[in-house]
């Protein structure tokens, strides 16, 4: 047996072990095509549709009559579904395939495993947010005359970048609470895709629906104020962050408490 030689000199400090778990999560991502293509599709959808829309409506400068962020972030309505799916798949496919048990056998410290997933999901989400937002503004730049240094634009850009990682973390946390891929897909993707938009159209429900994570997060993207919204733009981003934080905490609790 070579056990002693393997376990001896390489015996591990907590920091190295944390890095190893993150490395393993990265390897899980890169070895599964259905997983790593999802954020890529999200970026392509967001930017592609923003470009197509701005190309189609290029002749009309809507900046005076309407909030320009609606056109700039039009693609996000579609791209965010991929971001949500990415968050769901990060842990949902482990519950679906049963590899969650293998993962927890390899990494019995459940907080460490979940932390690595959050870090990877958040990091990839941030990268997707940067690319999507930069792409969306570039696509819109040709048709909308924007002052990039105005506080509203800066805030909208920051919110546009952060929207993606927050959504990934929200979905990752919620899926870990549900511990089931199908349930998470069934519950989260329609909510993100159309549910809250539909809810926001019902007068009575609108008051409450504006506090849902995607509604609040998207309000932070707007350049102009909307009547009837009970919070400011930055607060909208904070509300979404609170949702994501609560979901992450709920996911951690669920992973720690339940038998795998």
């Amino acid at each position, binding site marked *: 047996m070579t056990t002693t030689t*393997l376990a001896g000199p390489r015996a591990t400090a907590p920091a*190295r072990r944390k890095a190893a778990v993150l490395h393993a999560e990265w390897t899980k991502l890169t070895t599964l095509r259905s997983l790593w293509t999802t954020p890529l599709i999200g970026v392509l959808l967001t930017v592609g549709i923003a470009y197509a829309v701005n190309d189609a409506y290029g002749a009309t400068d809507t900046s005076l009559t309407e909030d320009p962020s609606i056109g700039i972030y039009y693609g996000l309505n579609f791209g965010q579904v991929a971001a949500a799916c990415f968050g769901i798949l990060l842990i949902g496919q482990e519950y679906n395939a049963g590899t969650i048990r293998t993962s927890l*056998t390899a990494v*019995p410290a459940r907080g460490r495993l979940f932390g690595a997933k959050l870090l990877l999901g958040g990091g990839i989400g941030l990268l997707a947010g940067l690319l999507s937002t930069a792409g969306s503004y570039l696509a819109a730049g040709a048709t909308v005359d924007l002052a990039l240094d105005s506080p509203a634009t800066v805030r909208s850009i920051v919110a546009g970048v952060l929207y993606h990682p927050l959504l990934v973390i929200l979905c990752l946390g919620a899926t870990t609470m549900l511990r089931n891929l199908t349930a998470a897909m069934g519950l989260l993707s329609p909510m993100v895709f159309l549910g809250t938009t539909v809810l926001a159209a019902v007068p009575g429900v609108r008051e409450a629906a504006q506090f849902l994570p995607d509604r609040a997060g998207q309000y932070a993207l707007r350049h102009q104020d909307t009547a009837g919204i009970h919070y400011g733009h930055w607060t909208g981003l904070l509300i979404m962050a609170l949702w994501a934080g609560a979901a992450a905490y709920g996911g951690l609790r669920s992973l720690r408490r339940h*038998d795998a």
Partner: protein
Amino acid sequence: MIEVQGLSKSYGQTLAVDDLSFGVRPGVVTGFLGPNGAGKTTSMRMILGLDRPTAGRALIGGRPYVELADPLRQVGALLDAHAVHGGRTARGHLRWLAHSNGLPDSRVDAVLDQVGLAEVARKRIKGFSLGMRQRLGVAGALLGDPPVLLLDEPVNGLDPEGIRWIRTLLRGLAAEGRAVLVSSHLMTEMALTADHLVVIGRGRLLADASTAEFIDRHGRTRVRVRAVDPDKLSALLRGPGSDLTAEPAEGGAWEVTGAEPERIAALAAANGVVLYEIAVQRDSLEEAFMRMTADSVEYRAVAA
């Protein structure tokens, strides 16, 4: 190496594992035996820290599994060969597993070679047969070259060649000084593979003994005799002066319990009965197991 101490697990009213205690020593293959639903898998999950015991604990080298640093280097486990993502390649699956415990990719290639999957290493798992998946699961267990191995039903669904491969592998790993715990409900296979047996039924420990002891204690030993003149033999064995228990078997033979073959042979010679077959027959592990579980009052009480 593995110490299970008063381990219990209940799901609501159902007691899946009931105050289970046993040890697994290095250098031998310990068979974890019991019918389906006896609590083998639940016990193994608790040993691996996946399920939380209702009471009791399981230690590996003196520590609970969840406290092990780089557990893959200390314990190799195969729970369910189907628990793999079909979209990954065999190598991809083993690579993330290796990286989680800081093991190099060279270990991945080494175990793929060891289990005979080197040629399909870069193929997606979704095309793998059950036998190949079992081999991949074994590769994952061997990744960290661990001194302790836990395998749950590794021969399930394997063809004769695969079963033979697992048997040889497990015996080889034990011969290297590792502690090997392997669960199965296949008695004949366990009789060939395991040196020691831990038998459970309805979550309770029924026996903890070496395979030979177990068969000696719970199986019957009979002497099979055949004579040129069956009637004379019958009269001798079941006659008024005989203290033997004899039952007729097929082909005019008799199975005698309660006497050594020497005594039967001497008795036959003294009475002029010519024997042409006399052989000691022991119960198989399966027969011994069936007799023991039928005898076990507790087992029957809960089973009913």
